[in-house]
């Protein structure tokens, strides 16, 4: 079923949760500093809670796709994403609760729990996988950060942090390199490498703007290394933080509500 991963899409996830990792235990000044930076970066899009609207553009060799999504999140483990556009898929929603992902399909009025075999499948036909969604909250547990470069590169004063999987972690990536803008502590790019040391994909951050009193990149572009010309771009249209949700909000019942 390895090729399974190739062709599957699924409903929504929360973009807010894709970006990088967080605190990871470690020793040494560099590790502590790297961890502090990563925590700062990771918390950019995340507060106790968030709510936003974003558009996603997917370009592949075979199709182009434009979606409008609305997302809600609370903490690290709970999120809900709903498709607003196109009309054909309007209402389709994805709930992430802990390590479990549920999808609700209005057309069939069924809630489906995604199985492990579909975790590496593409998310909504984009260049993200369902695994990205679930693993986002576990990167902190699975990887150790370390600073590998400090200085000016392509005209920007930046810090590069390498994330290495912990020895006992079952992870997809062998190494993740994160470039962070030093002055503003904002991420520039994440590069994902497989166990052969091959670059698999890059996630670029741009469009730095103020949103609900936070300065953050509002555009994220995922570019697969082996498919020239293909990418997925996500652009936040609005983002607000610090909302209060009822406990039932992130539940399967809520998922079914249009």
């Amino acid at each position, binding site marked *: 079923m390895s*090729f399974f991963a*190739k062709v*599957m*899409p699924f409903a929504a996830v929360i973009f807010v949760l894709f970006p990088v990792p967080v605190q990871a235990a470690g020793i040494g000044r560099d590790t502590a500093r790297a961890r502090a930076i990563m925590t700062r970066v990771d918390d950019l899009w995340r507060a106790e809670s968030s709510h936003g609207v974003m558009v996603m553009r997917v370009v592949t060799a075979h199709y182009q*796709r434009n979606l409008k999504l609305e997302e809600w999140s609370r903490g690290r483990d709970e999120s809900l994403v709903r498709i607003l556009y196109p009309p*054909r898929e309007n209402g*389709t929603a994805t709930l992430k609760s802990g390590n479990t992902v549920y999808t609700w399909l209005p057309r069939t009025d*069924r809630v489906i729990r995604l*199985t492990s075999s579909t975790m590496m499948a593409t998310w*909504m036909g984009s260049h993200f996988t369902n695994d990205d969604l679930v693993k986002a909250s576990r990167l902190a547990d699975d990887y150790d950060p370390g600073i590998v470069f400090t200085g000016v590169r392509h005209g920007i004063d930046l810090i590069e942090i390498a994330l290495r999987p912990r020895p006992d972690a079952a992870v997809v990536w062998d190494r993740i390199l994160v470039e962070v803008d030093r002055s503003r502590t904002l991420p520039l790019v994440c590069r994902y490498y497989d166990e052969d040391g091959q670059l698999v994909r890059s996630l670029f951050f741009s469009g730095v703007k103020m949103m609900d009193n936070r300065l953050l990149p509002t555009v994220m572009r995922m570019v697969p290394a082996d498919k020239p010309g293909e990418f997925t771009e996500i652009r936040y249209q609005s983002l607000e933080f610090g909302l209060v949700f009822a406990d039932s909000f992130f539940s399967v019942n809520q998922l079914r509500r249009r």
Partner: protein
Amino acid sequence: MRRLPFITALAIKNIRRRRQRSLIMVAAIAFAVFIAIYYAALSEGLLANTERNAVLMESGYIQAHLPGYLEEHDFYQLINDFARVRAVAGEFGLAAAPRLFGFALAANGGDSAGVVLRGIDPALEDRVTMLASHLRSGSWVDGRSGVVLGTRLSRKLGAGIGDEIVLLAQAADGSIANDLFRVNGILKPVANEIDQGTIIVSVAVFRRFFVLKSGVHEIALGGRVLDRGEVAALTRVLAARLPGLEVKGWPEIAPVLARVLDSSRGALVVMLLLIYAAMAILILNAVLMGVFERVREFGVMRALGLGPAALFGLVMIENGIIVVCGGVCGLMVAVPLVVYGQSHPIDLTFLAADASSIAGVAIDPCWYTSLTVSVLAWPLGLMAGIAVIAAVYPALHAAFINPVTALGYD
């Protein structure tokens, strides 16, 4: 040589003179031949059934894909001129069936599983494979939303006939394909891939679900019985006639299975040799006894002017007649039983309710025999060879008897 009729007459006389021993020999050889033929027919039946399951239930004899599709399973590697392939195949008396494959998540209640959705044209598929007649229950796919599930998949999803299952996938245009499908039928065990994770739908349903207007992933060719040689020859010819397509025979598509079947057939010959090794010792013993018993007789014959060649021939012919009688008796018992077994299988369902498998291909728990030339040729040919070899030593012994000592032998 001119003494051959005389020696043959003598041999027949000798056989009739020792009627009891001759009959025991004939019976033993008949039994061995019977066992060998029946065993060969059962093995061949099993192997042929496995081959049939693989070819007629799944692959077809020959397949055409775009180059690389078999390795990559890229959804967008589509053959766009099915009609032309079908026309070319038709020139060689072959039927062609289009197939489409797409990955999906199937769910029923709380259970879900990753599956391969297989789009087929029921009418055309029926001329290439016999999958439609291999249903355990329910009915075959129709042009509407009815689907057919592999047996283990139906158990995994807890889905029975009439149940509605949800399928979720990425459509060709990147959108989220999802729909409800009704379970029309459930297959008997065919092969691991089909049993565990395949859902069969009509091409029309597949196209609607995956938003795929045209093209097919695979074209299966078949429609008449082909042996391995014919498959290889046709594959070559079709490959030349269909440039731009990768044309492969089933032994190339399922190389593991082809090798397992080949080596199983080889193992059969080894098994026969083992059975016959015991027979060879029995024959050697019996013929040797017959020679020792008649040392004086042979001495007299030598003294009367028969040469060593004549005596050698006498023993060989005596033995040969007995072996031929035994072989014919064995055949007369075995062939009717094998013919009967072709339509009346040994039912092993009580041993294994569900089929086990060879190289991923299900074995039918009903064990049929198969009557082919090799099923008869190998047991009979080996028997003849071994009987001759086993009799050589006693015959030589008789040939080189010393008449002087032999006449004094008691």
